[in-house]
């Protein structure tokens, strides 16, 4: 047998990233030809505090073949139609970033061009009414699109989940172990490298146990036990664009309102998340320590809960940025060890999933090609860059001038690529997002228009139909949205009927 064959995969660290990796590898690679081992220590906490996701997670769950209702039940999950942004443009303002599209594309251009034409002609029904997820969120409704989706004019419902990340990790651990992945308990105290290639050959545990491997996946979190502490892969610090560097998190009692969305509320030195689960609500204040102290941030968070706290607040520290190389030698970093972007658009799990998918797509059979490593790193850079620019836009495009934090972000210099997008958007109401980008036109429109950037014009093709035809098309689209939403049930009763957890609080 070729001694370069990649047979033993060692995942360092449990948590969401570790177990998502273990589960995907044990399903896709299988454990007949590959040993999948995960080393974690119960003494080391995981970061998961309640996690909001984006619809792409369904791809991941589908690869695993998970039963969605079972997954929802097991993780105390609720359904999520988008994110509500409160106070981001200015105090008291709110907008919704939905998972689905506004209207439908027509004649090769986006719906928003038609809407803009109509709006400029005096039409006052705002664009949010042409999106089914937004309307359903308003009505606190949820329902999966029925297999027979009805007439074409009825939009499908795009959704993700809000779940307890530690339960998700536990759920995936059971899944992985059933498929033959092996979990080893213990703290890693030493790493052995091949003196010639520099490849990691084994990690040693406190207990003295030595775990050998051909490929090591670093899911150890912020510290990057292998990727940084062994390989010094380096880190691009983005905190001049995204200055928040702490989060204080606390769960609280559920208000039992069963909002099918995550809420992000802008605060004096950052923002506060609110993630409703079946049994409780996850909350956190993401802030910059330059503008508010840890104690004050925790105190402000506790003041602003809408239910009694269920635990002591827990503070996390991070530096926003990206590992310069996620893959070095035979070590690949996933999750927080590969970089950190604040969970403003719920991208953390997505970035793990993307990395897993790319690794699986490029999975080496024998030996690790340097070209492949470069390609992987380039693609991950692209993913991080896109998300990063989208996040920066939330801070840059604002009218807030009520605190030093907001004055800083409103006036800060931004990446050239983002400035170009904002300019294009201003000129014609679209950012010309590439096919491969995670956030498409609807997302950019929802956020940029929501934050207050009004386009000056729209695509000329929108002018080619008659006024009556325009109104008729918009009426039909609006009808489709209404018909879809009218057919949906209350989010709460949907969960109760399909996927209630034993600890769910139905009030």
């Amino acid at each position, binding site marked *: 047998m070729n001694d370069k064959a990649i047979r033993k995969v060692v995942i360092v660290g449990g948590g969401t990233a570790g177990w998502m990796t273990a589960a995907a590898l044990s399903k896709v690679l299988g454990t007949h030809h590959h040993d999948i081992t995960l080393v974690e220590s119960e003494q080391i906490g995981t970061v998961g505090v309640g996690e909001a996701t984006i619809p792409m997670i369904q791809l991941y769950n589908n690869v695993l073949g998970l039963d969605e209702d079972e997954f929802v039940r097991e993780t105390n999950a609720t359904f999520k139609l988008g994110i509500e942004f409160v106070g981001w443009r200015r105090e008291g303002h709110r*907008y919704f970033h939905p998972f689905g599209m506004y209207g439908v594309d027509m004649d090769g251009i986006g719906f928003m061009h038609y809407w803009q034409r109509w709006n400029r002609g005096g039409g006052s*029904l705002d664009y949010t009414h042409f999106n089914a997820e937004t309307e359903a969120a308003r009505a606190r409704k949820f329902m999966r699109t029925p297999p027979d989706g009805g007439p074409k004019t009825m939009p499908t419902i795009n959704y993700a989940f809000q779940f307890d990340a530690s339960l998700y990790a536990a759920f995936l651990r059971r899944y992985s172990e059933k498929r033959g992945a092996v979990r080893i308990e213990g703290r890693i105290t030493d790493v052995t490298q091949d003196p010639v290639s520099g490849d990691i050959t084994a990690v040693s545990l406190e207990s003295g146990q030595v775990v050998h491997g051909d490929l090591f996946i670093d899911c150890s979190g912020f510290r990057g036990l292998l990727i940084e502490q062994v390989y010094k892969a380096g880190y691009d610090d983005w905190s001049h664009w995204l200055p928040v560097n702490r989060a204080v998190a606390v769960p609280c009692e559920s208000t039992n309102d069963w909002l099918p969305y995550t809420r992000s509320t802008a605060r004096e030195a950052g923002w506060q998340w609110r993630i409703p689960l079946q049994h409780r609500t996850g909350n956190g204040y993401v802030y910059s320590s330059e503008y508010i102290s840890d104690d004050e941030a925790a105190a402000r968070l506790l003041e602003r809960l809408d239910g009694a706290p269920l635990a002591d607040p827990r503070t996390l520290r991070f530096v926003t940025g990206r590992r310069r190389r996620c893959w070095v030698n035979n070590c690949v970093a996933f999750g927080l060890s590969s970089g950190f972007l604040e969970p403003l658009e719920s991208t953390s799990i997505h970035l793990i999933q993307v990395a897993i998918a790319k690794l699986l797509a490029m999975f080496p059979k024998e030996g690790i090609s340097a070209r492949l490593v470069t390609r992987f790193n380039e693609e991950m850079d692209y993913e991080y860059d896109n998300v990063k620019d989208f996040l920066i836009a939330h801070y840059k495009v604002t009218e807030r001038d009520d605190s030093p934090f907001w004055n800083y972000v409103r006036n800060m210099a931004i990446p050239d690529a983002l400035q170009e997008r904002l300019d294009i958007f201003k000129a014609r109401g679209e950012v010309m997002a590439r096919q491969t980008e995670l956030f498409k036109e609807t997302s950019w429109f929802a956020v940029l228009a929501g934050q207050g950037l009004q386009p000056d014009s729209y695509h000329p093709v929108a002018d080619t139909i008659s006024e009556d035809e325009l109104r008729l098309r918009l009426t039909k689209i609006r009808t489709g949205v209404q018909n879809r939403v*009218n057919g949906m049930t209350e989010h709460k009763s949907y969960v109760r009927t399909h996927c209630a957890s034993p600890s769910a609080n139905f009030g």
Partner: protein
Amino acid sequence: MTGPVRKVAVVGRDADAWLAAYALQRSFGRRDDPVAVELVELPSLLRPQDAYVTLPAQKAFHNLLGFDENRLLRACSGVYALAQRFSNWSGSEPPFLHAYDTHGVSLSHIDFFQYWVKARAAGLNVPLEEFSLGAVAAKQGRFVIFNESTESFSRATYGYHLDAISYVKAVARAALASGLKHTVADVAQVQCDDGRIRSLRLTDGTVVEADLFVDASGADGILIRRLDADGVEDWSPWLPCNRIMAASGPALEPMPAFSQVSAFRSGWVGQFPLMNRTAVVAVYDGDATDDREMQGNLSALTGMRLEGNAVAAPFTAGGRRRHWVGNCVALGDAGATLEPLDAVQLHLLYTGVAYLVSLFPVSRTDMPEADVYNAKMQAHAIGLRDFQVSHYALNRRYDEPLWDRARDTEAPATLVRKLELFARRGVIAMDEHETFHEENWTSIFVGHRLLPSSWDPLVDATPEQEQIANFQKILGFIAAEVREMPSLQAHIELNSPQATSDYVF
């Protein structure tokens, strides 16, 4: 003093007065040799809870007045109604719709309804309304926009629900812009002479003289009663309710495409969707249920949390034998006072205005047009009354005094004629001047379970298989067409959009 009419004084309040004055101003006030039209506006009786609920004919009225429908609806939170839904009028019978549309299509020149009667007798259990495009669209909250195939199949149309105060404001704005002379005052004295009105003295001392006086003062008929003191026929034996309460609830979502009229122990309660609220009306027997009790029951009867106060006022159904007496024409409620049922509000006004415009007196002295006018108006008023009475006469709420009495009271002869012929063979005995058509009468008669015992014998000439196939074709056609229609709410939102807001979620 002979010669043409030079001056018309319209005395009245609210929609009756403004619509009448504006219509006359548009028709006669803008000619080269204009007739001077003056509106003496009496204090309004409208309350924020009030709404006007109209028949499809109101669209023609608005066209006559040159209103842009979309702008008008926007101004008064207006909503289209394709039908009225009646519930609880007959024990446990399911609710039925009176849609402004026909049923099915004729086959071999015989009305569809005749085939339905026969099929029903043979065991068909599809309600008549399922064969009406308008009714099915209404049930599904749709707005009918005709295409080539529906155009020949259906005559679906719509009436309006209009917020009363803002509607009157919108009409008044247009009327004043047209140069209508307008005085706000009360009438202190009506000077009569030889069966005619000579002049009015207003509370501010002004004297208003005119050749023709239009009484649009509402049920009181403050001018016409001076010429014809005993001219009102009491209709309360047939329309026994004597109180009307108005209230307001939250806007309904999704927006229904129909009015809802639900009977209860001592009357009925209506819910009329508007864009920004739901107008609620109760018409009841105040002797059986007092205002306090009525107010207490209103939430339960409507199933909605009411906003603000409910307000009540007395009511007596009745109509004048002559709407035009001497040089005075009573328009709207001054001519006949009907319940706000079947969307007849403002309809008699429109009919009166239309006839007055076409029969406008050529001479200020003798007005021979009055007789023709009166015959037509009385026929219309009686037709509307009978339509309302039929709900009472055909009710099946047993052991409730109001409803038992309503059933036991001998219906007016004009209605008895219709009921009897219909019960025998499903044909409506139509009179010359009627507002409602055969399909309207048929809808409510069948809805109230008055089912013909026989049918047109010519129906038997068509083989049963062919009839069944025809029924199935119609049902399939309606289902497919309605599925493609826009929703009523979307249609309103995009055609007469309401005020915009910055609040985007």
